[in-house]
């Protein structure tokens, strides 16, 4: 221990007193010389002879000094400081090189850190809270939600430091300054802010005592974004009232602008309302799925102890809840970091794909810089040879050349981070068709810093190691002899290999981009099985409690009558869900039974409740039987319509129309329904899904407990022109309802969102990779042409035609690009398989069209990149070229 410390002290001393240590060493060596000379003189030599003999014997003093310095290991540090200064000075004389390298790296690092920030912000954000490390996400009995009573019972047990819940799927109508708007608030238990402990930007948060559901609290906390966007940043907002679902709520406070909400994924709920019966009608239903749980560990609790305490508490309230199975804690995980596992897998895989793609772009950019440095080291060959001759060791030279790379990487990384901030600003402005705003702020945190440092190190090594090793090859000593290889040409230089690598990687990137672009194309042109070009969708959200079952039906019937009377409208109907939107209906899995034969089968199918004429309005083909009419209502015989897939799956060879089927009803009671028709297949949840079975029930017959309904209108003309009339008509009939009207095509934006994002991001990365690789190819070819000026001059002088010269240059570039493309195709065929999970069913990851298109595009662009230097080669004048000799 003590020796370790001693050594450390010695090294530190020699670092800070490097000059003193050097002087001491020199004195020591001088003394040695002097003693030797004395001895020789004593032995009878003259002073001059003695001196010469001693010096001869001594050998190269500089080398001994250098070796002694090396043993003081800190050399690495002091050398680094020296190299940093030296290389910065020499780079200053090469502004173009620095600029080209910086831009190249900055673009790639910018893309890289942006993707990383997005992933970090969307997937791994730590929620804004006091001591967020002590927050945990909790699931009980495997359910994502617990009921209000279950939460209450668990919270009162005080098993943890605090236990709160939230609900992020319910909607409220907010009466805005112009019209009613549907918002998705975060509906929270009264103690939400107490457990979270977040400081507010303005005003205060509500406390558990004032916000308990039993007091019917009418207070709200709003997000900074909501305050700015929707309320114009009103400085006197605290204390004012906002109307939600027709009830006045007093604003208590405004959250800070950089607030990261607890649900994660970058979601930024606009309004925080305390949980009440008014907002969640099933508040007192014993086992309703009302809130998701999170808790705060007590200061003296570990994760394990907290989990055990909660499980114990859960088992203790079984009797109280009259639920003998309640209380098994199935998830107890930190609130920051990986969120809901189910969703996470695909999103995570997508981000992993993006990170791989941006790292490939970075590799291409690094290869460019490596190419530049290689070209430069050819020029510096003599300098390096001289330094080797003067006693610089290879490792010392490599270290210095790496330092040069470090500067370039540093400039590039800093530029990249700046670029990232710009990109994140732009991304922040994109509004997504989602019900809750997504806010991701770019912030320099430890994670981003660590990632940037890793990138910096990788970039340095990728850019500078190969050139450094190449430049310091021992065989380079002949460079001293002024040998310049003016008339020789080697195709497989290290630069050539780098370019092949770049083209290979670019092809893989390009192919990935092609697949995603093709995917978007196929998705957009895919026939969803219903008409998207001729309909308008109005999503109508009623105020809670405004209608009874009967009055709402009256409202709906009256609405379609008035809509049908509009001049542009061909036919109007209503439905509970609209396929391919966020509200695309529910999936049911049930045991069904045929009433006549008693045969029962397990079926999984989509369910939608639709109004009369739904199939005509949507343009879904009626294959057999009839559409629903206004007479299919409560009281009349129960009927359903199934789709083709349902019929082929479960009625193979039989005619289902006219049959009675037993459907699962409420409280486990089956009820019979007659199948009155079969309609064509269509898409339900995603455009790329495999065909789903579906069942349609009459809206008017089965009722609908929600506050949400869609009115769908088939227009005679362009649907966009009907939007205003439709909105006005509905608003006149119920001014308190939130109405969102848009043409069907734009309402489906949500379904295309993943393909759009995929195509946009990977398309951009593919283009970026292509551009960088082509810069590399261009640079290598132009450099080769300039190196071969004399050779080409001789060839021209000997009678080579322009075409021959063109062929000469193009064939060289062609071999490089060709090898890259060939390797890329092989590599791509091996690695693209996992992409299949992101693609529509019709598109295979080894899609020949994408492969062909990527290869062709690369060939064309390579040709373009080579053309300019090749043309230059044909213009070489032999007289000028050879005069330099």
């Amino acid at each position, binding site marked *: 221990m003590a020796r370790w410390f001693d050594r450390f002290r010695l090294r530190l001393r020699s670092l800070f007193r490097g000059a003193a240590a050097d002087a001491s060493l020199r004195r020591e060596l001088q*003394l*040695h010389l*002097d*003693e030797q000379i004395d001895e020789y003189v004593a032995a009878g030599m003259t002073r001059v002879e003695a001196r010469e003999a001693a010096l001869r014997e001594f050998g190269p003093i500089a080398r001994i000094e250098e070796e002694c310095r090396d043993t*003081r290991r800190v050399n690495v540090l002091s050398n680094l400081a020296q190299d940093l200064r030296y290389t910065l000075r020499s780079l200053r004389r090469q502004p173009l090189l620095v600029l080209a390298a910086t831009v190249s790296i900055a673009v790639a690092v910018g893309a890289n850190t942006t993707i990383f920030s997005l992933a970090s912000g969307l997937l791994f954000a730590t929620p804004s809270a006091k001591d967020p490390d002590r927050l945990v996400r909790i699931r009980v009995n495997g359910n994502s939600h617990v009921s209000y009573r279950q939460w209450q019972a668990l919270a009162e047990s005080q098993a943890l430091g605090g236990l709160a819940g939230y609900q992020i799927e319910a909607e409220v109508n907010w009466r805005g300054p112009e019209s009613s708007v549907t918002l998705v608030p975060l509906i929270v238990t009264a103690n939400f802010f107490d457990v979270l402990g977040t400081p507010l930007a303005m005003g205060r948060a509500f406390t558990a005592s004032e916000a308990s559901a039993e007091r019917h609290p009418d207070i709200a906390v709003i997000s900074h974004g909501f305050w700015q966007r929707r309320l114009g940043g009103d400085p006197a907002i605290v204390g004012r009232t906002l109307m939600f679902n027709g009830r006045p709520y007093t604003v208590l406070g405004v959250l800070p602008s950089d607030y990261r909400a607890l649900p994660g994924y970058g979601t930024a709920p606009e309004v925080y309302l305390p949980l009440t019966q008014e907002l969640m009608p099933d508040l007192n239903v014993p086992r309703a799925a009302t809130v998701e749980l999170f808790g705060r560990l007590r200061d003296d609790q570990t994760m394990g102890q907290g989990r055990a305490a909660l499980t114990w508490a859960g088992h203790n309230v079984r009797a109280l809840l009259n639920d003998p199975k309640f209380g098994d804690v199935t998830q107890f995980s930190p609130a920051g970091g990986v969120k809901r596992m189910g969703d996470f897998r695909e999103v995570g895989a997508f981000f992993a794909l993006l990170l791989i793609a941006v790292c490939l772009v970075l590799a291409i950019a690094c290869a460019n810089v490596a190419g530049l440095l290689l070209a430069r080291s050819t020029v510096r060959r003599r300098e390096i040879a001289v330094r080797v001759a003067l006693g610089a060791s290879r490792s010392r030279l490599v270290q210095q050349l790496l330092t040069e790379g470090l500067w370039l990487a540093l400039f590039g990384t800093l530029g990249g981070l700046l670029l990232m901030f710009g990109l994140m600003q732009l991304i922040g402005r994109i509004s997504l068709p989602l019900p809750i705003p997504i806010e991701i702020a770019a912030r320099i945190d430890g994670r981003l810093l660590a990632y940037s440092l890793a990138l910096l190190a990788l970039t340095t090594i990728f850019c500078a190691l190969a050139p450094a090793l190449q430049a310091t090859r021992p065989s380079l000593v002949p460079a001293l002899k002024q040998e310049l290889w003016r008339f020789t040409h080697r195709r497989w230089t290290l630069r050539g290999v780098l370019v092949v690598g770049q083209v290979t990687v670019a092809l893989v990137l390009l192919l990935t981009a092609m697949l995603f672009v093709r995917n978007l194309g196929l998705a957009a042109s895919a026939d969803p099985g219903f008409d998207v070009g001729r309909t308008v969708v109005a999503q109508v959200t009623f105020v809670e409690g405004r209608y009874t079952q009967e009055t709402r039906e009256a409202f709906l019937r009256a609405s379609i009558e008035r809509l049908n009377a509009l001049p542009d409208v061909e036919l109007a109907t209503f439905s509970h869900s609209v396929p391919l939107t966020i509200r695309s209906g529910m999936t049911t899995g049930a045991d069904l039974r045929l009433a006549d034969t008693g045969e029962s089968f397990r079926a999984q199918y989509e369910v939608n409740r639709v109004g009369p004429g739904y199939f005509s309005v949507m343009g879904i083909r009626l294959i057999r039987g009839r559409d629903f009419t206004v007479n299919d209502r409560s009281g009349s015989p129960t009927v359903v319509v199934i789709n083709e897939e349902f019929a082929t799956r479960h009625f193979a060879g039989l005619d289902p129309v006219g049959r009675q089927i037993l459907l699962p009803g409420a409280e486990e009671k089956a009820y019979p329904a007659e199948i009155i028709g079969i309609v064509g297949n269509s898409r339900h949840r995603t455009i790329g899904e495999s065909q789903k079975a579906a069942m349609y029930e009459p809206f008017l017959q089965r009722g609908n407990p929600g506050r949400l309904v869609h009115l769908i209108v088939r227009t005679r003309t362009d649907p966009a022109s009907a939007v205003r009339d439709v909105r006005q008509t509905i608003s006149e009939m119920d001014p308190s309802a939130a109405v969102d009207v848009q043409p069907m095509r734009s309402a489906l934006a949500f379904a295309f969102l993943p393909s759009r994002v995929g195509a946009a991001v990977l398309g951009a990365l593919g283009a970026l990779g292509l551009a960088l690789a082509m810069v590399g190819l261009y640079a290598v070819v132009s450099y080769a042409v300039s190196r071969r000026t004399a050779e080409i001059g001789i060839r021209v002088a000997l009678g080579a035609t322009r075409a021959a010269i063109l062929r000469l240059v193009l064939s060289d570039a062609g071999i490089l690009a060709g090898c890259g493309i060939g390797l890329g195709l092989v590599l791509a065929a091996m690695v693209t398989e996992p992409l299949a999970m992101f693609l529509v069913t019709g598109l295979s990851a080894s899609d020949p069209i994408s492969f062909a298109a990527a290869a062709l595009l690369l060939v064309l662009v390579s040709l373009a990149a080579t053309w300019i230097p090749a043309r230059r080669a044909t213009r070489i004048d032999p007289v000028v070229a050879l005069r330099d000799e």
Partner: protein
Amino acid sequence: MGKPADLIQGTLDLLILKTIALEPRHGWAIAKRIQQMSRDVLQVTQGSLYPALHRLEQQGWIKAQSGRTATGRDAKFYALTAAGRKQLAKELESWDRLSGAIQLVVREAE
């Protein structure tokens, strides 16, 4: 703690440690002493002596102190540290083992 050293380097370290075991010496005197003791068989060049001295100093086995040479010059004298003494014993032991082993092999071969 020390790095695996090849025979030559290890031997030079041993020679140096042994040479200064009795009294501190400066670089030239160490080289001279090794030469004399080996009856001019072992010639330690400056190129290996000084890096070795610095390495041993870094290892903490010897320490430098200032002193005056026989010719009246100020010089850096190297002396064994306690750790150096232990290291010397260790190296002597392994040298004995090694040279004994080589002897055995060489004799046997004759």
